[in-house]
C-alpha cells in the first residue's frame, strides 16, 4: 500500500523526467500518451487509496526516508493520508488528468509540446507533495515547487517579454509569501520542537486560545497563503498569470495551486481556531478580496482576465469561510470551484482556440450556434458559479454563506453582495461571448469551428462534475446527509471542538437566506441579460466613454501602477544609490584611500633623502643629540 501511495507522485515525476530529458527526441504522439497517461495512472492509484481508505485509519503517516535529520531536528520524507489529503488527491489528479487530456488538443500546434507536458507533470508532482506531505517542510517543497512550475508555465511562450515579466512577478510574489511560510515553520519548530502535523497539532490542542505565539505563527503562515492564493495585497500576479496557456490557467491558477493556501489553513485548522485575531484578519482579507476582485471583474473585457478575477474573488470566499470556522464549507467550495472554474477556463480556451487567439470579449459574440458544445458547457459552468441550484456552486457557496451568517449578519450582507456581482459579471461574460451577432473580423468568422473531441470531451466531463458536484455534500434540508461533512469530520474534529458553537440555523431562516440570495442572483442575471442582450447596444466602444469611477475600476484601480511607484521604483533607486554612492564612493573609497595614503606618504618622505651630504650630517647630529638627551639628561 505504501508503494502505491509513493507511486502516486512518482508517476508525474517520471513523466517529467522522461519528457524533460528527452526533450526533442520524443515524438508528439508518445508525449500525448505519456503526459496525460502518467496523471491518469496516479489518478487511478489515488482512487485506489481512496477506496482502501480504512487501511490508513490507524496509522495515517507513512515514512519513506529521513530527509533532514539532526539531533533535535528530524524531518522525515513522510506522507499523510487522511480524508483531507484524499480529497485533494482526487481533485488534483482527477481535474489534472482532464486538463492534461484537453491540452493534447489545445497545444497540438505548439512547438514546445513536450516541454509543456514536462512542466505540467512536474507541477502535478509538486502539487501532490504539497497535499500529501506529513509535515510542513514537505508541504513547503510542493509549495515552492508549484510556484516554480507556475513560473515556468506562465512564461511558457518566453519570446514575449510581458509574459516573462508576468512569470517573474508571479514567482516573486509567491516568494514573498514563502518567506512568511518559512518563518512560520521556524516558529513552529521553536515552539513545538517538531514540524510534523501530528506532533504539532497534538500539542497545540492544549494551548490557550489567543496565545500570542500561535497568533504570530498563524499570521506568518497566512502570509504564505496570501501569496499563494492571490489575496489582497499579493493578488496582482494572478491576472497577469493569464499570459500562460489556457490549460495552465485552468489547472494551476484556478483548480489547484491557488487553492493551496486554503488547503494549508484547513490543514492547520486547529492552530487557527486557537488564534481568533488571525481569524478575523483572514475573514476581512477574504471578504475584501472577494468584493474587490468582483468589482474589477465586472469591467474586464479579456475573457481570461474576467475568469482570473472571479477566481480571486472565489478564493476570497473560501478564506471567508475558513475565517468563520467553516472548514468543510471552504473545502467543499474549493472542490466545486475546481470543477466549474476549470470548466470555464477550458471553455474559454476552446473559444480562444476557435477565434485563433482572440481574447477580447468585445470582439466575440454569437458563438452559441457555432460552438454548441462549448456554449452549453460554458453555460453550465456559469450557472454553477453564479450559485443557482441545483448546480454545485449553489450548495458550496450556500454553506459558506450560512456559516458566515451565523457568525455575523453584516458579513453575510457583504458576502451576498459579492455573489450578486459574481452572477452579474459571469452572465455578462456569457452573454457577450455567445449571444448576439459576431463582432469579430470576417476572417475569424469564416474559421469559426467547434473544437476537436479531445477538447470537448473534457469539457463535458467537467460540466458533469460542475453539475452534480454539489451532491457530495448535500445539506440535510435537501435531505442530504452531508457526505463530505462526515468524511472530513475526523480531520476538523479538534478545530470544531474548539470553535464556539453557534446554534445551527433553524430551517426557516435557512430557507429565507437561500431564497433571498437566489432571488438576488437571478435578478442580477436578468439585469445582465437586459443590459447586454436585449438592448443589443454596441459594446465595442464601451470603456472610454464611461464615468471616471468605472474607468478606474476598469483599470483595476491602478493597483499595479501603485505597486510599481511605491515598491519597485524606490527599490531600484535604492539599489542604484547603494552601488553608486555607498559602495563605490564610500566603502571602496576608504579602502583605496588607505593604499593611497601609504603611497602619498612614501612619495613625500622619500624627499628627505635630499642627496646632500651636509644635510645628512646635520640630521644625524640631531639624531645623536636627541638620543643622548633622552637617555642621559632625562
Amino acid at each position: 500500500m505504501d508503494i502505491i501511495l509513493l507511486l502516486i507522485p512518482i508517476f508525474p515525476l517520471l513523466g517529467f523526467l522522461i519528457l524533460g530529458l528527452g526533450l526533442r527526441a520524443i515524438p508528439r504522439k508518445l508525449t500525448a500518451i505519456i503526459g496525460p497517461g502518467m496523471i491518469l495512472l496516479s489518478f487511478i492509484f489515488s482512487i485506489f487509496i481512496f477506496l482502501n481508505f480504512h487501511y490508513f485509519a490507524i496509522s495515517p503517516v507513512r515514512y519513506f526516508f529521513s530527509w533532514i535529520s539532526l539531533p533535535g531536528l528530524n524531518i522525515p520524507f513522510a506522507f499523510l493520508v487522511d480524508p483531507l489529503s484524499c480529497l485533494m488527491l482526487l481533485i488534483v489528479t482527477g481535474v489534472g488528468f482532464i486538463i492534461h487530456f484537453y491540452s493534447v488538443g489545445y497545444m497540438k500546434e505548439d512547438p514546445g509540446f513536450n516541454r509543456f507536458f514536462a512542466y505540467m507533470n512536474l507541477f502535478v508532482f509538486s502539487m501532490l507533495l504539497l497535499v500529501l506531505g506529513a509535515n510542513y517542510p514537505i508541504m513547503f517543497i510542493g509549495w515552492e515547487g508549484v510556484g516554480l512550475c507556475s513560473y515556468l508555465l506562465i512564461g511558457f511562450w518566453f519570446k514575449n517579454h510581458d509574459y516573462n515579466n508576468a512569470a517573474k512577478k508571479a514567482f516573486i510574489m509567491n516568494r514573498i509569501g514563502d518567506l512568511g511560510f518559512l518563518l512560520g515553520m521556524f516558529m513552529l519548530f521553536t515552539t513545538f520542537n517538531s514540524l510534523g502535523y501530528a506532533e504539532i497539532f497534538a500539542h497545540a490542542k492544549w494551548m490557550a486560545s489567543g496565545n500570542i505565539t500561535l497568533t504570530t505563527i498563524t499570521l506568518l503562515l497566512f502570509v504564505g497563503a496570501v501569496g499563494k492564493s492571490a489575496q489582497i495585497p499579493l493578488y496582482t500576479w494572478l491576472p497577469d498569470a493569464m499570459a500562460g496557456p489556457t490549460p495552465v490557467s485552468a489547472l494551476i491558477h484556478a483548480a489547484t495551486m491557488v487553492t493551496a493556501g486554503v488547503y494549508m489553513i484547513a490543514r492547520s485548522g486547529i492552530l487557527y481556531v486557537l488564534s481568533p485575531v488571525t481569524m478575523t484578519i483572514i475573514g476581512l482579507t477574504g471578504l475584501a478580496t472577494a468584493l474587490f476582485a468582483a468589482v474589477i471583474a465586472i469591467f474586464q473585457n479579456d475573457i481570461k482576465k474576467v475568469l482570473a478575477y472571479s477566481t480571486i474573488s472565489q478564493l476570497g470566499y473560501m478564506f471567508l469561510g475558513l475565517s468563520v470556522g467553516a472548514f468543510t464549507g471552504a473545502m467543499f467550495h474549493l472542490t466545486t470551484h475546481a470543477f466549474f472554474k476549470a470548466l470555464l477556463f477550458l471553455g474559454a480556451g476552446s473559444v480562444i482556440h476557435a477565434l485563433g487567439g482572440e481574447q477580447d470579449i468585445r470582439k466575440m459574440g454569437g458563438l452559441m450556434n457555432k460552438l454548441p458544445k462549448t456554449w452549453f458547457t460554458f453555460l453550465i459552468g456559469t450557472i454553477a458559479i453564479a450559485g443557482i441550484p441545483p448546480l454545485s456552486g449553489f450548495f458550496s457557496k450556500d454553506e459558506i454563506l450560512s456559516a458566515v451568517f451565523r457568525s455575523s449578519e453584516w458579513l453575510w450582507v457583504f458576502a451576498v453582495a459579492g455573489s450578486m456581482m459574481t452572477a452579474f459579471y459571469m452572465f455578462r461574460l456569457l452573454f457577450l461571448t455567445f449571444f448576439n451577432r459576431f463582432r469579430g473580423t470576417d476572417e475569424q468568422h469564416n474559421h469559426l469551428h467547434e473544437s476537436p473531441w479531445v477538447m470537448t470531451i473534457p469539457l463535458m466531463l467537467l460540466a458533469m462534475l460542475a453539475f452534480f458536484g454539489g451532491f457530495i455534500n448535500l445539506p440535510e434540508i435537501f435531505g442530504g446527509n452531508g457526505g463530505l461533512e462526515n468524511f472530513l469530520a475526523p480531520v476538523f474534529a479538534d478545530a470544531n471542538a474548539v470553535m464556539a458553537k453557534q446554534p445551527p440555523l433553524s430551517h426557516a431562516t435557512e430557507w429565507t437566506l437561500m431564497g433571498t440570495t437566489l432571488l438576488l442572483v437571478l435578478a442580477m442575471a436578468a439585469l445582465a441579460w437586459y443590459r447586454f442582450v436585449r438592448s443589443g447596444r454596441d459594446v465595442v466602444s464601451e470603456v472610454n466613454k464611461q464615468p471616471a469611477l468605472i474607468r478606474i475600476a476598469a483599470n483595476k484601480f491602478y493597483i499595479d501602477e501603485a505597486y510599481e511607484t511605491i515598491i519597485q521604483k524606490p527599490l531600484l533607486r535604492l539599489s542604484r544609490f547603494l552601488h553608486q554612492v555607498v559602495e563605490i564612493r564610500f566603502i571602496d573609497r576608504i579602502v583605496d584611500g588607505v593604499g593611497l595614503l601609504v603611497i602619498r606618504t612614501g612619495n613625500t618622505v622619500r624627499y628627505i633623502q635630499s642627496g646632500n651630504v651636509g644635510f645628512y650630517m646635520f640630521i644625524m647630529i640631531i639624531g645623536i643629540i636627541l638620543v643622548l638627551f633622552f637617555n642621559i639628561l632625562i
Partner: protein
Amino acid sequence: MTTILSLTLLGVLVLLLGILKKKTLQLPLILVGLLTALALTISDWNTARHLFNEMLIIDNTAVAFSAVLIFSTFLIFMFAAHYYQGVQRPLDDIYAIMIFALVGAVLMTSYGNLIMLFIGIETLSIALYVLAGSHKEAITSNEATLKYFLLGSFLSGFLLFGIALIYGASGSFSLHGIQLFVIANGQNLPPMFLAGLFLLIVGLAFKIAVVPFHFWAPDVYEGTPTLLTAFMATVVKTASVVAMYRFFSHTFYGIYGVWETTIWVLAALTILLGNFTGVYQPNLKRMLAYSSISHSGYMLLAVVAFSPFTGNALLLYSLTYSVATILAFGILILVREANGNDYFTSLNGIARTNPVEAFCLTIAMLSLAGIPPLAGFMGKYFLFTTALEQGLLWLVIIAITGSAISISYYFKPIVAMYLKENEGGKLNSGVPFKAHLIFLTLLLFLLGILPFLVIGLL
C-alpha cells in the same frame, strides 16, 4: 683564529697572483680559499676559546655568524666572474680588498675587546670606501664613495668617542671588564658611561643603516657597483648587527638594558620609514636599499627582545636575508648589463624572455616579503616570536604593518616581469650563472621548509 689567518693569507695570495699576472687563477683560488676558510671556521664549533687575553672570543655565536659572512661572500664571488667579464684592468685589488673587508667583518663578529671592534669596523669601512669608488669612471660611483667616506669617518669619530668614554668610566676595553663594571653599578650607571654607550650604539647603527643614521645607504647602494652593493647590503649589515648584539649580550647579559627604549624607537622608525620610502621607488636598486633598511629594522627587533633565543633568530634571519638579497642583486647585475639602468621598467616582460631569472627574482622578492613557505617567512616568524615572547606587542604590530606595506614594492618587479609587455632586451646569463641563481632559489626553499637546520644551533 684560523679563519682570520686563512682569510688574510687568501687576500695576500690574491694580490700575489695579481703581481704574477695569473688572472684566470684568481677567482678559483678565492672560491676554494673561502670554502676552506668556511670549513676551518666550522671546525671551531663548540671549541670556545679566548685569544690574546680576550682580544678575540671565538664562541659559537662568533663561529656561526662568521660562517654566514664567509658564505655570503662566497655567494657574491660566484657572480664576480660574470660581472667582471670583459673588464681589462686587473681586478686583484678589488678582490683582495673585498676579502680584507671580510676579515674586518669576521673580527666584528668575534671581538672580545672594543679595540678589536674598532679595528674590525675600520678595516671593513676603509675597504668599503675603496670598493664603493672602485668604478672610477662613473661619477655616481665617485659620489657614492665620497658620501660613504665622509659620513663613515664622521660617525666613526663618534664611535671612538663613545669607546673612549666607556673606557673612561669603566676603565677597561674588554667586554668582560665592562660587564663587571655594569654588574657592579647595576641600575645607576654613571652618565659618562651612558653617553659612551649610546655613542657606540649610534656608531654601529650607522653601519647597520638604522634611521636616522641610514642616509648614506640608498645613495651609496645606488652608486656602488652592483656586485659590491650586494656585499654591503649583506656582509656589512650582518656584521654590524652582530657586533651590536654581541656587545649587549656580553656586557648586559641578564641585566635590565638601559638601551632598550632607544633601540625600540630606532627599530620602529627604521621599519616604518624604510618601508614607506620604498613604496614609491622607480628604481629597483634603490628599492632594494630601502628594503635593506627596513630589514635592519626587523633585525633590531630581535636585539630589543634580547632573549636567549635572539641569537638563533638573528642567525636565521641574517642568513635568509643575505641569500635573498644576493639573489636579487644577481638578477640586478643581469638587468643592468642588459638595459644599462636599474629601473623597474627594464624588467618588463622578462618572464617571457627569461622565465628562469624571472622565477628566481620572484622567489627572492616573496622571500624578502616574508611569504610562506619561503626562508624569509621563517626568519620573520622567529623574529616576531622572540619579540612577542618579550611582550613587545606594539613593536611587532608596527613590524607587521611594515611588512604589509612592503608587499607593495616587493610586488613591483613581479608585476613588471609577468604583467607588462617586454620592451627591454633579453637578459643573457651563462649556464653557471643560471645554475647559481637556481641554487640560491633552492636555498630559499630549503631554509623555509627546513628551518631547524639553522634555528637550533645557538
